[in-house]
């Protein structure tokens, strides 16, 4: 008897689930997934957009840039978010599927170099930065700081920030052998705050009063210097869609690159794409 009851309950539950999923599959739902760096922007923009368009429902998931791009190619989602451009491998996949992706830059991020509060150094040149992160400079006194071993902290090798860093700073020379790798912006900020010899890089939005921000080639990162490219360590965040995105998805992207959307971008600690 109990088994019978349970079976009925289970099938009823399944039916409800099916109904719900059928409803959410309607055309006024936008599915997006991808880069965790872009996540705060997409999340905040989605909330504002849903407020303005009550009939629309936006599902925002993370997963990483690769997941975002791959799902966009497979058309299993409407918008794939990425903190990098598509790679050669992914273009091959696009050709294979005979699909096509449209790329829209939605925001800019300035990668900020931070050190411990007690560190006397205030500025580094791009060349010094490269030599520190590749292990040629081992001690802070070589860049007129104090006599302490430099503890180099990277973001993880596959994070979007690392890729930009690799291109702009390291110029593809290899990373210092014993450099640390931490999983998130916050983890890097925390470790730098209590490690006297540490240097690391984080998104502009994550800089706080417990750590010291360095200028690079005498330019401090800010929305202004990131926009006019005076500050060298910047990158763009993208949204990828199919060639013919559904109407609500297209509207959502227009919203993010509109003035109002770009204000949300700034409020989240990122940089507008133009003026």
């Amino acid at each position, binding site marked *: 008897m109990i088994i019978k009851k349970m079976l009925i309950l289970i099938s009823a539950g399944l039916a409800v689930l099916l109904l719900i999923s059928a409803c959410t599959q309607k055309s006024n739902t936008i599915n997006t997934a991808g*880069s965790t760096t872009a996540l705060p922007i997409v999340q905040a923009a989605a909330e504002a957009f849903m407020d303005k368009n009550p009939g629309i429902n936006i599902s925002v998931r993370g997963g990483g840039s690769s997941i975002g791009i791959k799902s966009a190619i497979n058309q299993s989602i409407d918008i794939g978010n990425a903190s990098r451009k598509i790679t050669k491998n992914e273009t091959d996949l696009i050709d294979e599927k005979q699909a096509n992706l449209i790329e829209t830059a939605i925001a800019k991020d300035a990668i900020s170099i931070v050190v411990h509060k007690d560190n006397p150094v205030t500025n580094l040149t791009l060349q010094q930065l490269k030599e520190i992160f590749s292990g040629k400079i081992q001690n802070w006194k070589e860049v007129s700081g104090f006599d302490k071993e430099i503890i180099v902290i990277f973001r993880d090798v596959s994070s979007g920030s690392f890729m930009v860093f690799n291109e702009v700073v390291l110029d593809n020379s290899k990373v210092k052998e014993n450099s640390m790798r931490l999983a998130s912006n916050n983890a890097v900020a925390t470790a730098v705050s209590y490690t006297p010899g540490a240097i690391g890089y984080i998104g502009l939005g994550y800089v706080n009063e417990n750590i010291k921000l360095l200028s690079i080639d005498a330019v401090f990162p800010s929305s202004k210097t990131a926009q006019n490219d005076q500050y060298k360590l910047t990158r763009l965040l993208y949204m990828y869609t199919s060639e013919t995105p559904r109407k609500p998805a297209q509207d959502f992207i227009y919203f993010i690159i509109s003035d109002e959307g770009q204000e949300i971008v700034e409020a989240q600690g990122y940089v507008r794409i133009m003026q």
Partner: protein
Amino acid sequence: MNKFKETMFKSITYVASLFTILALFGIIFSLFSEGIPILKIINFKDFLGSTAWHPTSNPPDFGILALIIGSLVVTVGALVISIPLGLGSAIYISEIAGQRTKEIIKPIIELLAGIPSVVYGLFGMAFLSPFLIKVFGIPTGLNALSASIILGIMVVPIISSMSEDALSTVPKSLREASLALGANRWETIMRVVLPAARSGVLGSIILGFGRAIGETMVVIMVAGGAAQIPSSLFEPVRPMTAAIASEMGETAFGSPHFHALFGIAVVLFFITFITNLITEFVFRKKRNQT
């Protein structure tokens, strides 16, 4: 009607167990089919034997020896900490403590096992790591030692509760015989009770090993993440699980890096598979003895 119920129940349980086996084979299959292709890019010897792990450089290096060593260092370190603590508390609970103390201490130690690993990781990051910098004056607090300490604490309840079970199944007559022959309590525990329970104790240690080597969140947060063979416990390391979990998210699907991460997973699978086999073997021997 009754017969129908009987068959129905039988088939439901049958499907449930079949599903578990299917899931296992599915996981093994996908692991190997995505992991084997890395051997087209790098040969087997370099993959396992080289320490250069630069998966996103140009050209990339996919040597995982430093990652394997990293995993082993923190796991052995964890066991060095957890075996004395776990075994010690097991002996105390089973042999020395009175009934009341036992009833208090045992659930408290088992409570440790219920704390989510991300909480352990936060503790290591926010408290243990700055503490180690202050005490030892070392350049960084996220290193093999702090990961070993945290993993060690996590493994204590496994070793403690399983060893305690093994110790308490040793027949009372053995202890009484030993005491009657003039051995004191210490001698009885070390020479009679522990040897009699050795297979259970060994099993708990192997299980603890499997737990520590497979743990991911803690080592991502606390081990420091440097892909190097450490020259001391104060240097950061990058265990295999940390590399897989933190690099998979943004790796292009089907790229050499992607296959290399699955290759690491295959190696990890073999290590845990072998430890499970050993545990199974140890326990089977024990069952046959009794």
